[in-house]
């Protein structure tokens, strides 16, 4: 059927173009919204000059970026240096292709114009594989800059993304077991009333938690933004980039953020479905947008709240904490699915595991005590003790007897003539 094939090709091209425009617009406005929200949280106003409420700020930024000089360092590997940011963006954009952003226009009758670029039967695998290519853009960019900061940042990024990808994939596998499909469209259909009638978050609370933590690390956002840790690495892999190529990297970061938010929405929060509401034409798009917006806000919120984690702890969290939990979740889910247990059993077990983990961390935090000196004062570790001006060993905290004794001793020494003034 050559006619149908041509229609599909043309429709896919047009839909891709529309999707790219929408994603880039969202990226532009995410930068502005993020700055406004973070400013509000920090008690500032944020950019509010360009246009009403500063709404034209992205445009101003774009113009500024377009006219900035793009410096190519002398020690850079020119070709790779120029290609790397483009690679980042292409990868980020193509990962979004399989995400269904809404219900098909005529439910039950799939057409070439449905609101997703492609419904392939390995949709989720496509996203995982393509988004793990994102590390290439960063590593190549960091390496080809010929700058040690860039190289360190990109190596950090590579290690971090590979570490957290394992937990991320395993966390998603639980949902896949419940849905029994990899196609993103079918995944959403499984969560509608016609399917299993539940959002998979209720069956997979633990999987969702692991996924969110791993996703934040995967897109290099705070508190896991070590690849661009300003205090240590200037700007990490971005150090040598300027102008439009710098904003290409930013673009890739934000589009990746949108992608992981969409995956979280699709796999755990029912995608565009909302218990029958999605049957109203056009509303499914809004439902999807609202859910994704919530996750995007979560990313901003986390960034404004949490300080950056230390690198060794990042690795420990990934390999020694998240990965075992993800494996445990996969085992529990597999058992539940194999035995044909209802979804709430799996959800309950997940909640119990979360509670147990929280209880264990709480108990361990209670065990953390500072050593006590003879006078009963807490002996703080040196890093904390810097804040205190008075050494606890002297006992000055108890009313200054030691200081008085010291003065008395000096006085006697003076009277004995052992000390000359």
């Amino acid at each position: 059927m050559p006619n149908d094939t041509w229609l599909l090709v043309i429709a896919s091209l047009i839909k891709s173009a529309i999707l790219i425009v929408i994603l880039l617009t969202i990226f532009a406005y995410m930068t502005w919204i993020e700055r406004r929200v973070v400013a509000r949280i920090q008690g500032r106003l944020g950019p509010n000059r360009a246009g009403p409420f500063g709404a034209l700020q992205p445009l101003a930024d774009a113009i500024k970026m377009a006219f900035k000089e793009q410096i190519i360092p002398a020690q850079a590997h020119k070709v790779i240096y120029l290609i790397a940011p483009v690679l980042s963006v292409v990868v980020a954009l193509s990962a979004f292709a399989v995400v269904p952003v809404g219900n098909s226009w005529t439910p039950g009758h799939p057409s070439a114009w449905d609101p997703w670029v492609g419904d392939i039967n390995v949709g989720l695998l496509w996203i995982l594989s393509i988004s793990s290519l994102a590390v290439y853009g960063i590593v190549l960019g960091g390496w080809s800059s010929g700058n040690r900061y860039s190289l360190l940042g990109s190596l950090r990024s590579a290690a971090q993304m590979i570490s957290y990808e394992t937990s991320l994939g395993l966390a998603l596998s639980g949902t896949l077991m419940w849905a029994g499909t990899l196609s993103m469209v079918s995944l959403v259909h499984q969560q509608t009333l016609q399917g299993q009638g539940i959002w998979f978050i209720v069956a997979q609370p633990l999987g969702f938690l692991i996924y969110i933590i791993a996703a934040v690390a995967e897109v290099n956002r705070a508190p896991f933004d070590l690849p661009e840790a300003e205090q240590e690495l200037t700007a990490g892999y971005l150090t040598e980039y300027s102008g439009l190529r710098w904003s290409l990297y930013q673009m890739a970061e934000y589009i990746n953020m949108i992608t992981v938010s969409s995956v979280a929405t699709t796999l755990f929060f029912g995608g565009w479905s909302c218990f029958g509401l999605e049957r109203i034409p056009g509303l499914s798009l809004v439902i999807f947008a609202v859910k994704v917006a919530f996750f995007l806000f979560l990313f901003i919120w986390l960034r404004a709240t949490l300080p950056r984690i230390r690198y060794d702890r990042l690795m420990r969290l990934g390999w020694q904490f998240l990965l075992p939990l993800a494996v445990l979740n996969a085992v529990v889910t597999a058992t539940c699915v194999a035995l044909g247990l209802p979804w709430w059993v799996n959800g309950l077990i997940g909640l119990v595991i979360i509670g147990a983990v929280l209880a264990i961390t709480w108990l361990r935090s209670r065990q953390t005590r500072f050593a006590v000196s003879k006078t009963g004062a807490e002996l703080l570790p040196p890093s904390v003790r810097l804040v205190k001006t008075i050494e606890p060993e002297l006992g000055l905290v108890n009313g200054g007897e030691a200081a008085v004794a010291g003065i008395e001793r000096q006085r006697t020494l003076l009277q004995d003539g052992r000390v000359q003034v």
Partner: protein
Amino acid sequence: MSLDILKGLATTLKNMGRKPTTVSFPEQERELPPRFRGRHVLHRYPNGLERCVGCFLCAGACPADAIYIEAEENTEEHRVSPGERYAKVFDVNLLRCIFCGYCEAACPTGAITLEREYKLAAYYPENMVYHKEQLLEPLGQATVGSAAYWFDPPPAEEAPQPVPQKTHVFDGLEASAAAVGLGDAQKQPEVLLRNAEQDEDRRKFLDEEAEEGGRQV
């Protein structure tokens, strides 16, 4: 602990509803404290005469050497200030000025005060040297400016005690100038006293003090 993360998230979320601390500056301005020290203003008496009598005390007090004055005698025909002299030239270099307010404190007639004008910017450094015409308030206006806020109220009957109030023992924990007084601290550095060539006047003063049975050097 993991729950602390939730606590932190709640804190930041609460902050979102708070009124921002910053203001949109050119449209909206912050209310300044009454003793704010901005640009200098030269004041007049109600009869139109300038308060400044050209005594150079402000220029002498200025730690940044920002004030330049040329004084001239008042004559019967041309009387500018009620005193003997008036300031013919009064320049304040606001690039040097550190806005410490010493000039205001030094002025015997309350002629110079630091006012609330803080929007000081210029394209050329020479434009930041403010001349008398720019500093002097217009004829017909006679204010005292922020000097009104600088007069301290008389001290209360019960002045603060120099002895530490918590322990009533001076053990060095609560060290302050008021608590210590001058004590036995040496008033002159040793080097200065040993060096005969330096500062004869001071040595003379110290010798006199020693003759009067003061402290031994």
